[in-house]
């Protein structure tokens, strides 16, 4: 379970939010909303542990993530603004290396299946630099199909995706929630996912 206690984040001299608290239980999704610049990305990066909050605490299973190190990182899949896709590697190599880094071993068939499911089946051996923006996003999101971690933190996952892939992604997220997973995501679109969907609006 993820618990945020009295979180305050500052960017430069600007106070983004303070006194923010929420919790996320297995099977729940939290949709973070807010205008541009209201601190959505900062919140997500802070929850991941990439940025340090000004004050407050982020707890995973009752223990601060600062004290957990790899235990928490093992339970986490983060997809940020940048896709984390290497231009010079092929689509398949990108996915293979990304999953191996998160400590999972998948057979080649599994990897290909995931790429087929996300609509990249005919491009698995193409270098990522040949792909369009939306297709790169798909390579990055293909990790979710293979992810065994409990907490997914997704920063604008729908950016540049077409309607068909958004439907696939929403289905994958719904399955993750059904299996007791947790999702924290930001998007300006409506989230149309079955399950417990909570909302949090940050005001600029």
């Amino acid at each position: 379970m993820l618990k945020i206690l009295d979180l305050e984040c500052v960017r430069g001299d600007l106070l983004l939010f303070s006194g923010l608290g929420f919790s996320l239980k297995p099977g729940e999704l939290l949709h973070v909303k807010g205008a541009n610049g209201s601190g959505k990305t900062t919140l997500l990066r802070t929850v991941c542990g990439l940025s340090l909050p000004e004050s407050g605490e982020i707890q995973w299973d009752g223990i601060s993530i600062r004290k957990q190190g790899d235990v928490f990182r093992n339970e986490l899949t983060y997809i940020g603004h940048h896709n984390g896709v290497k231009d010079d590697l092929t689509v398949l190599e990108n996915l293979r290396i990304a999953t191996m880094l998160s400590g999972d071993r998948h057979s080649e068939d599994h990897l290909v299946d995931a790429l087929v499911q996300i609509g990249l089946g005919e491009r698995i051996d193409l270098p990522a630099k040949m792909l369009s923006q939306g297709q790169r996003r798909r390579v990055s999101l293909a990790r979710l199909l293979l992810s065994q971690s409990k907490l997914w933190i997704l920063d604008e996952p729908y950016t540049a995706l077409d309607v068909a892939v958004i439907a696939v992604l929403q289905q994958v997220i719904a399955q993750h929630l059904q299996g007791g997973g947790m999702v924290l995501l930001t998007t300006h679109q409506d989230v149309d996912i079955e399950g417990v969907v909570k909302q949090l609006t940050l005001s600029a």
Partner: protein
Amino acid sequence: MFSVINLMVRRDILLAMRRPQDVMTSLFFFIIVVSLFPLGVSPEMEVLRSIGPGVIWVAALLASMLSLGRLFSDDYQDGTLEQLILSPQPLALVVLSKVAAHWLLTGLPLVILTPLLGLLLGLNVEEIQILTLTLLLGTPVLSLIGSIGAALTLGVRGGGVLISLLILPLFVPVLIFGTGAVSSMNAGLGVEAHFSLLGAFLVLSLLLTPWASAAALKISME
């Protein structure tokens, strides 16, 4: 633990193979800098022989500086670095693997080319042997210490120049003992002390720099 090292080293070498110009640039830089000295200073063999070890060491130092800027910046720009930091693998180990790959791609080729450039500068066989060995011990230290600078200057505009200012002073001891070995052999003194010190630098930087670079990377990501 070894699977992470294996994975990361292979990944970085694969990436470099897909874009060989990056590796080639620092190698040719090394060759060109060394071959400018006979033209610029003097073609006299005696002069070249006396400055040869120093010239090769300084050129190697600058050539490895040249490629350090890209050690983390490519991963930083495309978001892979975030994923590396958030992966359950220990970051220091990831850093160590990246440095190992960096040395295999840019340090080792310099060591291999050294005998050839030594001949160009009129060094004799014994001098070339000693010089090559000092570079074999010294270039990994350059990559290791340089990784701290590369991590600290990540995302800073004009980071390349800043790395040189931060890191070159730290290379001075390696340079002194690296070139000192050849001259002390010529003076009839033993070279053991120089090699022991270079070895000590290597062991120390192997133990300490991955942690320092990992910490610097986390700060740069904020």
